[in-house]
């Protein structure tokens, strides 16, 4: 993802809002990758030596755990980004319906 270019006219707050957003996205997407591609596929066999809720852990991540984490990720993003938006004054929550 490219960085903001210097020739912007509409002010500084929005640019740093965007870099905060990218940082948050990077963090959440690395969790997304780790639980599914990491735990569910690449590390599935070694993890199967452990158990979660009575199920081999690699199998559990592949067929259940990753789905729970996905749901949590979307709500965490929604909550964190709303806070960032309010901080930078770019939220649409207070604007009401057009």
């Amino acid at each position, binding site marked *: 993802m490219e960085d903001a270019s210097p020739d912007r006219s509409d002010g500084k707050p929005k640019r740093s809002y965007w870099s905060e957003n990218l940082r948050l996205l990077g963090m959440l997407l690395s969790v997304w990758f780790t639980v599914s591609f990491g735990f569910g596929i690449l590390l599935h066999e070694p993890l199967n030596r452990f158990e979660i809720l009575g199920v081999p852990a690699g199998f559990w991540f592949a067929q*259940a755990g990753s789905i729970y984490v996905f749901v949590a990720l979307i709500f965490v993003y929604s909550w964190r980004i709303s806070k960032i938006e309010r901080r930078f004054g770019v939220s649409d929550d207070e604007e009401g319906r057009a």
Partner: protein
Amino acid sequence: MSTQALTYLFVGLSFALYIGIAIWSRAGSTREFYVAGGGVHPVANGMATAADWMSAASFISMAGIIAFAGYDASVFLMGWTGGYVLLALLLAPYLRKFGQFTVPDFLGERYYSKAARVVAVLCLVIVSFTYVAGQMRGVGVVFSRFLDVPIDMGVLIGMAVVFFYAVLGGMKGITYTQVAQYCVLIFAYLVPAVFISILVTGNPLPPLALGAEAGETGQSVLERLDGTLTDLGFAAYTEGTKSTVDLFAITLALMVGTAGLPHVIVRFFTVPKVSDARRSAGWALVFIALLYTTAPAVAAMARLNFVETVNGTAYAEDTPEWVKSWEGIGLIGWQDKNADGRIQYAAGAPFEGAPDFSGETGPSGERVLTNAPTGSANEIYVDRDIMVLANPEIASLPGWVIALVAAGGIAAALSTAAGLLLVISASVSHDLLKKTFRPGLSERSELMAARGAAVVAILIAGWFGIHPPGFVAQVVALAFGLAAASLFPAIVMGIFTRSMNKEGAIFGMLSGLTFTILYIGRFKFGWFGGGGEEDWLFGISPEGIGAVGMALNFAVAFGVARVTRPVPGTVRALVERIRVPSGAGAAGVH
């Protein structure tokens, strides 16, 4: 009341409900027809998205696929849910901020050309029609199985119902019928799942069943299943047979494909605000996860139950009654190869091809098959769809539960078909007519054209349903692979880079699309002399090739963009605007 009468009653009532909603919520403007007026509550939109997304395949076939593929089927579970993370984080809020009606709207304006819009329409139509062809067939199959009508008749009934609420109500009608359809389908899925969970583990919560003790055996459902299957010569349920690179590629292609499916994306144009689009995607995944975390449990329990109650039983005396009733309609077939009168279940196909009944009755009372037997010790053919369809009978549930499952399966098939038909008609009336070839079109004529396009799309989809092309079984791979390789990269680059220009995006989409079609064509339909597993690129199956198509799209786009003209300043300003939520306004106002 008989089960058949109850089925007619339940299905009839659900149809009356859908049509009633359609009349109450009919669209009066193009804004209502394309994006339901932009005023749908995020939770309601989440439910509608879940119904839109979960087709007859999710409802009926998925548990069966997991039951027979075990760990390998994890690609579907992760792929079809993980895509919502990408959708919520990378696409939905920005497209909602952009605030027009269709996916080609965004691509056409972001890549400042009619050519980009038309290429986007082309990708959308190919993706959506390959998907809807399978759905209409699914509608027909579900009808014929539950209502005892021929499949073609089932397709026609399905077309008539979809016609009514999609043409009349547009997105507005579809949204509220999908909310109702979600309620019907999830209730119909969970009721038998809870009962079979109690039957097998004594615990009413299906998601906990995998690790729960199976009966009084001292082993968990999974341990017992692993043990039983390896004894019979199958691979262990918790270990896969696919290569790691293929698992990786298929999961990625399904995730990215999910996020790139136009009929799913447009659902997020219907909520009032940018923050609602994010929340709504979260709710959609909650509603989807209810079914997707239940399916693996249903799969494992049904497979275990099948092996334990059927294998080794004497057909004439102790084989369960439901086996015979599903044999009656051809979804189970038994060939007594060793003539001992008992059913032997083992790895491998029992005989060549699908069961072909001679019409005679064998020595144990079974339906005689004319198929040539294979060398495998396995004697029984099972259609994998049975794992969900036969659950109520396996758990000895009353007739109304079977009727409920029928209504649920039909709801799942109709809701997906309607969502697909709507994006096709919107892309024709709005993107091709209004925005490309007939810019002078009035609001009224555009609405007429949208309804007309919906009619034509239903007729074409119905034709595919009655004359299914040979590729119906492969359409899932095709639709997801194409969405992943064409639309997703173009949209993401349009939001996250300011420098991607029209040449880059257009060549990127076209090369991703072409590469993926040709690869799937070669290995699925035998183009260019076909080929086997040993010819796969990097060991990646056609199901996973969309991931490579996506990478190719990105690479071509960045390469072409480097050597062509930079994007105009107005487009850079557009990108800045969609990156911040404030000032969204209503969809379509810009």
